[in-house]
C-alpha cells in the first residue's frame, strides 16, 4: 500500500492531491504490467478502470476495415490512458494497446466513481484534472485536423 501511494504521489496526474485522497485512491489501485502488443482495453468493452502510466508507451487505436489499425494517439509515462470509465456510457471508445512493455497503476473505475459520489470534493478534484486532460487532447486533435504538414507551408520550398 505504501508503495502504491508513493507511485500515485509521483504521478503528475494525481500527485498533487491531498494525502488523504492519495491514500484513498491507493486502496482502490493496483500495479499492472502489459507486454508489448497486449491490449489494455478494447473498443466497445465496459470501461471500468483508469490507467496511470508509469513506463512504456500505449497506442490509442481504431480498427478499420480498409486501412487496418490506425493509431490516433500515443501516451507515455506520466500520462493517463482511459477516461471513458468516468462518464456514461462507460464504454471504451478506442483500443488501447501497449506498443512497448507498459507498467501502470490501475484504478478501479467503479469504486472511484462511488467514492466521488460520496465525497463531492474528491469528485471535483478528479473532474477538474480530467477536464484539463480532455481539453489538451481536443487541442491536439484540432491541430492535427489542420493537417499542417499536408498542404500548408513548412520551410523554403
Amino acid at each position, binding site marked *: 500500500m505504501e508503495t502504491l501511494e508513493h507511485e500515485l504521489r509521483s504521478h503528475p496526474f494525481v500527485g498533487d492531491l491531498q494525502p488523504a485522497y492519495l491514500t484513498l485512491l491507493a486502496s482502490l489501485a493496483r500495479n499492472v504490467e502489459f507486454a508489448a502488443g497486449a491490449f489494455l482495453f478494447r473498443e466497445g468493452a465496459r470501461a471500468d478502470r483508469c490507467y496511470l502510466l508509469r513506463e512504456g508507451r500505449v497506442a*490509442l487505436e481504431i480498427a478499420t476495415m480498409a486501412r487496418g489499425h490506425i493509431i490516433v494517439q500515443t501516451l507515455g509515462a506520466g500520462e493517463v490512458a482511459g477516461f471513458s470509465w468516468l462518464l456514461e456510457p462507460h464504454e471504451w471508445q478506442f483500443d488501447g494497446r501497449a506498443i512497448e512493455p507498459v507498467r501502470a497503476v490501475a484504478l478501479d473505475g467503479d469504486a472511484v466513481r462511488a467514492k466521488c459520489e460520496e465525497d463531492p470534493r474528491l469528485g471535483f478534484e478528479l473532474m477538474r484534472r480530467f477536464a484539463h486532460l480532455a481539453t*489538451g487532447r481536443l487541442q491536439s486533435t484540432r491541430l*492535427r485536423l489542420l493537417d*499542417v504538414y499536408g498542404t*500548408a*507551408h*513548412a*520551410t523554403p520550398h
Partner: protein
Amino acid sequence: MQPRTEAARAQQPWLDREPWRVTATRRESHDTVTLELEPPAGRTFSFQPGQFNMLYAFGVGEVPISVSGDPEAPGPVRHTIRDMGAVTHALCARQAGQEVGVRGPYGTHWPVAEAEGGDVVVVAGGVGMPPMRSAFYHLIAHRDRYRRIVLLYGARTPADLLYPDELSSWRGRFDLDVQVTVDTAAGDWRGGVGVVPDLIGSAPFDPAATTAFMVGPEVMMRFTIRALMRAGVPDERIFLSAERNMHCAAAMCGHCQIGPFFVCRDGPVFSCRALGPWLRRREA
C-alpha cells in the same frame, strides 16, 4: 550620388548567379529530393546553418532553398527540396551531371554560438527538418559545448519522416534525446502519435538555461512557442525560421516582408522576441 564601390558592385543579386553541377540526387520521400550541388571550379562556398541559397531552374524560375548539409563538411552542398510547384518540381527532377543556377548564401543563421553552455531544444516539423539539420550537425559536431540536446521532430505520417537512417543513429546515442511524432500512423508504428507541441512538456531540458530552435508549419511553431514559454523558456531564447514569398533575396522586391522585417535579410532566423508581435497579428 556617390559612385558605387567595388564591393557594392559585387553584390548585384541576379548577376551573382552561377551554374553549379548536380553531383548526386537522393529521394527522401514521395515528394522530397535532396540535391548535392558542386560550385564551379575555383569557387569556394561557405554557409552558416539556417541560411539559404536561391536555386534557379533554367526556363522555370528561382526559389529559396535552405542548405541542409553540414556547414563544416567539405564537398558538395546539400539541399533538400519538396516538390510543391513548377520550380521545385523542375529541381526535384534534376539528375546528376545537370546544372542548377545558384546564388547565395543569404539570410541570418541559427545562433548556435550563443546557445553554448546550455540546453538546446531543436524542433522540426515536416519539411522543417532540412534547414534544422544543418544546425543539428553543428551541435553534435561540437557536442561538448552544449549540455542537453533534444530533437523533437513531427511529420504527417511515418512515411513522411525525412532522413530516417540519421534519425535512427541519433536516437541510438546516449547524449542526444530524440523524440519523433506523427499525426497518424498505421498499427505497426512504434513511435509517438500526437502533435509536436505536446512533446515539450515531457522533454528533458532546463527552461532557465535553454535555447530553442524551430522550423515548421506556422501553426505548429505558434503552439510550440506557447508550450515552450509556458514551460518557462523566455522569448528571446526561442528562435524560429520564417518563410515568405521571395523573388530577389536582396531586400528589394518587397514580397518577403513581415511587418518591418525582410525575411531574406533580417531572417529567415528570427528570435521570438523580435518576430512574436508580428506573428500574432492576423494577416500581417
